[in-house]
């Protein structure tokens, strides 16, 4: 079974978020919340700026009144190739695996919060309290995802439980993974199919093709983090020159 080992590490998971398709509906946020056992952000948690959402839709305004346009951009962990969060962790809880994922190992994490301070995208969240759910939601939790206890850091995992499960399924059926077979919770929930997930190392995959699109850009490029999440800029038919992203 050496093929398994050879296969492991040859992939590089990446994501494309097409901002032109994003309507800001927050379905991805909700799907992520349900998939990954994220505690409910109650009012007092949000007030103290301690809410947890692995993916968030940021809204900003473009243009001057009365030609104002609402723009949306979903922001999740960018799974940077040069991740600023990784070298600062004293216990190697945050590390880069050979499939291009920035992995958070919950049982190593001691809660120094250095990584959250180092992250320029603000996508790492600290559990200040033990997560609680109302009794009615107890049986809705995903059994494939660890419930993070108090005092550890968490972030988007690119739905690694789905990656593992689907790869396992393909292997047990004795075939290669197909492109688009793995769906993260957010990409499955996106009503306009604006989020695409796949293998960036496979030149035939959708993400590899979209990566070289002329609208493609990455967030905070000047920091040299080399994210694996690539955005496609919004097309504005009324405005020339806006095809290049502003970020």
């Amino acid at each position: 079974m050496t093929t398994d080992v050879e296969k492991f590490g040859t992939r590089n998971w990446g994501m494309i978020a097409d901002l032109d398709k994003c309507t800001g509906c927050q379905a991805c946020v909700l799907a992520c919340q349900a998939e990954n056992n994220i505690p409910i952000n109650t009012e007092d948690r949000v007030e103290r700026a301690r809410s947890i959402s692995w993916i968030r839709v940021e809204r900003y305004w473009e243009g001057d009144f009365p030609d104002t346009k609402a723009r949306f951009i979903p922001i999740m962990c960018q799974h940077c190739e040069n991740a600023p969060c990784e070298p600062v962790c004293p216990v190697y809880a945050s590390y880069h695996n050979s499939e291009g994922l920035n992995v958070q190992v919950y049982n190593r994490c001691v809660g120094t919060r250095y990584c959250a301070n180092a992250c320029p995208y603000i996508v790492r969240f600290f559990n200040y309290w033990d997560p609680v759910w109302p009794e009615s939601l107890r049986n809705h939790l995903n059994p494939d995802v660890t419930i993070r206890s108090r005092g550890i850091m968490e972030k988007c995992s690119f739905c690694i439980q789905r990656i593992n499960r689907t790869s396992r399924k393909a292997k047990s059926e004795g075939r290669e993974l197909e492109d688009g077979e793995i769906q993260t919770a957010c990409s499955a929930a996106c009503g306009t199919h604006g989020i695409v997930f796949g293998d960036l190392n496979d030149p035939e995959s959708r993400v590899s093709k979209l990566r070289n699109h002329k609208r493609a850009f990455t967030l905070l490029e000047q920091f040299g983090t080399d994210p694996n999440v690539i955005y496609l800029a919004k097309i504005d038919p009324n405005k020339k020159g806006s095809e290049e992203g502003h970020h």
Partner: protein
Amino acid sequence: MDLENKNKDHKSKSGNFKLPKLPIKLPKLPIKLPKPPPPPTHLGDVELPKTLMYLLPIGGLFTLAFVGAIGSFIITAWWGQPIPVLGFEQTFDQPINFPHTVHASTKQLDYKDADGNVMVGLGTDCTFCHRTVNKNTAAGANAYIPPVNFCANCHGVIGSEDNVQLNILRDAAGIIGDDGTSPINWRRVHRLPDHVRFVHEPHIRYLSANPEHIKGETDGVSTGPSAVCSTCHGNVASMEKVYQVEPLKMRQCVDCHRDNGAPTDCATCHH
């Protein structure tokens, strides 16, 4: 005269015979060990009995032995299975004394059936009852224990009506008694450490394809998925009461993953 003197000298020398010095010089300790304080003779104004002088060191020895016992327990539990004392046994009394021998073994048993004939194990495949174990589903993570009705499919008919253990099952399945059905609270024997996502299916698939890596022997069927279970679970088919054979610690997982070329990335198991 000289001879006598010599003899005398020799005798006197042998009389003052000294032990030869050790070839090795023991190095002096870099710190001076403090002298133990003299045992207390008075507690306030009350004079303590002299027997206390003997009791105190005995008490100290007992304390040392106690601490040592706890220490050795922790160390053995850290590296392998804990010493089976004080509820740390690897086996439990189950609500029903379910004998795996009768169901899974293919050998002759100590049991006798109603007619007095010596029973031979049924030799059922493990996956006949633990159905999800080689399925790639979310529930396949655990080798599930079948619902009561599944047992009752056979035991509604098979087995004596006076069998106490079987009647517990029949009662739970609602065949006898009038309190309806109720699940049986089996106690879990094999429990992995926390934070591990273990799925049986890929392990069974790999070992079935590479039978040279299977460890242990089984009294049960040795073909199909059942042949590989003994690698981690031991010879379950020979157990009256199932107990944990392997410590199932991370070291064991990682060793086996390394030997067999499986990924040792953290996210393989911890996510």
